[in-house]
């Protein structure tokens, strides 16, 4: 029931006000529509990307395998019967596989047919048997039904990636196709979980190539990076924010840190190559050196994130502590750092996530080598996940196409876990005192 307020000037009319309001709402709606369409576009690309990768890569988590009745024949493997590991290690396990296949297909009597039989299996299948026997010597003399990996062409055929006929890219003879079909109808040939992808290092044979070496290499590199860049980064940020007096010198440092954060990572790789390998003589291709190079890459990011987190701690916390007679260091360690820690941790993990996906500096320090063994220590030669993706993407075999995508999926899972950890840590520390 208020009275109408007199307009300030005659030009302010009800119609004019309403028109302006309508225009304002219209602009508002436009802006919101723009925002929504931007998000929709971004999500579309993301779904497209993820869809392609998962669509191409999920089949790599399975590997076609043939179930064979293998007799660990002592006469073949250990003619002396002494159980000497050196003899067992070099024995002809391929012969066990050939024998088993020939029992399954007694009609394959000619040389060419027998060669075809061996082409069914992966050239590394015998290593599988050797590993089993060395792990469990009591297998000697027994006959076991064992799933062994097929060769990559058979695997691709089973997965439907290649056709059966020559026109469709198939490379099998009619006899081979018949045998493959018989194995499948017998339930002896099936795509099963691809354990090699997670237990083996790199290999020239796609069916035996695994990510274990790359995962362990990435893990060691990251461990070195965290252990170095977190304390260094936090110390630098604390010094710059809490101790250094604002001066021309700190300005120069600040500008340089911001610039370093934008330096292409390959430059840090070259720096690492020169300093860590050429000057300090550290081992080539080692996760230790990779971690050092990644430390250079991630330090600026962590320092900047930590400084932002420290800046966000309200000044009254510092005043309250100092007014009680706390020293500057006590003020920092007792009050400021705990309050800034969620932000620092988030920044660090995001920096680490960047480091996990970093490829260029690792190429420079030699982590791009073909490494079959899974590294046992941070100074053993290794690759890293992104480098493994790069290597496999450059391999021509059909089997590496799906494995490249699988490696990308594993890397994305790595990143998702790390980001989830960042969110969890932030929530956990924030909850402490409301």
């Amino acid at each position, binding site marked *: 029931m208020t009275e109408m307020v007199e307009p300030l000037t005659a030009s302010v009319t009800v119609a004019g006000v309403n028109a302006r309001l309508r225009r304002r709402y219209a602009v508002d709606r436009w802006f919101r529509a723009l925002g929504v369409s931007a998000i929709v576009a971004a999500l579309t690309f993301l779904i497209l990307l993820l869809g392609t990768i998962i669509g191409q890569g999920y089949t790599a988590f399975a590997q076609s395998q043939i179930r064979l009745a293998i007799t660990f024949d002592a006469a073949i493997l250990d003619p002396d019967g002494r159980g000497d590991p050196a003899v067992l290690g070099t024995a002809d396990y391929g012969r066990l596989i050939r024998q088993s296949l020939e029992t399954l297909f007694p009609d394959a009597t000619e040389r060419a047919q027998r060669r075809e039989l061996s082409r069914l299996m992966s050239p590394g299948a015998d290593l599988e048997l050797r590993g089993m026997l060395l792990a469990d010597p009591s297998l000697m003399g027994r006959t076991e039904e064992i799933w062994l990996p097929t060769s990559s062409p058979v695997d691709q055929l089973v997965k439907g990636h290649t056709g059966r006929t020559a026109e469709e890219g198939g490379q099998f003879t009619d006899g081979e196709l018949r045998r493959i079909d018989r194995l499948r109808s017998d339930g002896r040939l099936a795509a099963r979980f691809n354990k090699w992808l997670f237990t083996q290092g790199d290999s020239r044979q796609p069916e035996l190539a695994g990510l274990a070496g790359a995962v362990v290499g990435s893990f060691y590199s990251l461990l070195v990076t965290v252990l170095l860049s977190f304390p260094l980064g936090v110390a630098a940020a604390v010094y710059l924010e809490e101790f250094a*007096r*604002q001066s021309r010198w700190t300005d120069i440092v600040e500008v340089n840190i911001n610039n370093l954060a934008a330096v292409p990572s390959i430059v840090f790789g070259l720096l690492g190559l020169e300093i860590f390998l050429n000057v300090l003589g550290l081992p080539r291709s080692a996760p230790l050196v990779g971690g050092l190079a990644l430390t250079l890459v991630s330090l600026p990011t962590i320092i900047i994130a930590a400084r932002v987190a420290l800046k966000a701690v309200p000044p*009254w*916390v*510092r*005043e*309250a*502590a*100092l*007014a*009680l*007679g*706390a*020293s500057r260091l*006590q003020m920092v360690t*007792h*009050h400021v750092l705990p*309050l800034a820690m969620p932000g620092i941790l988030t920044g660090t993990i995001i920096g680490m996530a960047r480091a996990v996906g970093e490829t260029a500096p690792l190429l420079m320090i030699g982590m791009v080598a073909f490494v079959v063994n899974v590294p046992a220590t941070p100074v053993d030669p290794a690759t890293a996940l992104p480098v493994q993706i790069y290597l496999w993407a450059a391999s021509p075999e059909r089997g590496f196409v799906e494995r490249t995508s699988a490696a990308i999926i594993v890397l994305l899972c790595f990143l998702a876990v790390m980001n989830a950890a960042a969110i969890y840590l932030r929530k956990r520390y924030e909850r*402490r*005192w*409301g």
Partner: protein
Amino acid sequence: MSNSDGEPVASAKIKVVARDVNVFYSDKHALKAVNLDVRANEVTALIGPSGCGKSTFLRCLNRMNDLIDGARVTGTIAIDQQDIYLKDLDVVQLRARVGMVFQKPNPFPKSIFDNVAYGPRIHGLAGTGAELEEIVVTSLKRAGLFEEVKDRLNEAGTGLSGGQQQRLCIARAIAVSPEVILMDEPCSALDPIATAKVEELIDELRQNYTIIVVTHSMQQAARVSQRTAFFHLGELVEVGDTEQIFTNPNHKLTQGYITGRFG
């Protein structure tokens, strides 16, 4: 030098002596040649319009101005005849002797107990856990907060009401047994009831501590203080017994301010 301003010092001991104190913030001359004596076990109120230098002066007394880049203090300030601006003086020790309560209640985001125990812990005032607990309980009792929080000492200090938080800050300050307590507009963020409680507390604390309180409220200055100092544009215009300042000020500026002609 303790009674050079010529006032009779018969009953009251002089606790803090400031002589020719100047403060510069970079180029700004924030405090100009201030001479002020503060009597022990009294409440001295610093009043004056915004930006007059009263908070600046307060922060000289525990050297909180040291923290501001470009701040410079000249002149001498002595507490119990000891110059607190000596080069080799330990600021940490000084701040244990001179406590401070801020405008906005600022308990640490820790438990009530840990808030009060923090000072004694860093200064090593308690040998055992039992002693520490005793200090905390005594401090909370002196701050008139114990009855309200005794069942939830482990809950967050930030969960208390504004007035309780401010009394918690007072308990935190007195837990290190200071001689002087500085209060920078301690009630300006509180409602009238909480204000009344804090004012009452200030009056009680006078028994044991020398209190200097900056306030924008002249009623508050009149209610809680025995002495009042009026600052204007960085100068100390007048200092005297509160009653005299409010009833019969010597200076025209003081009169103008307390009667509300400017402010």
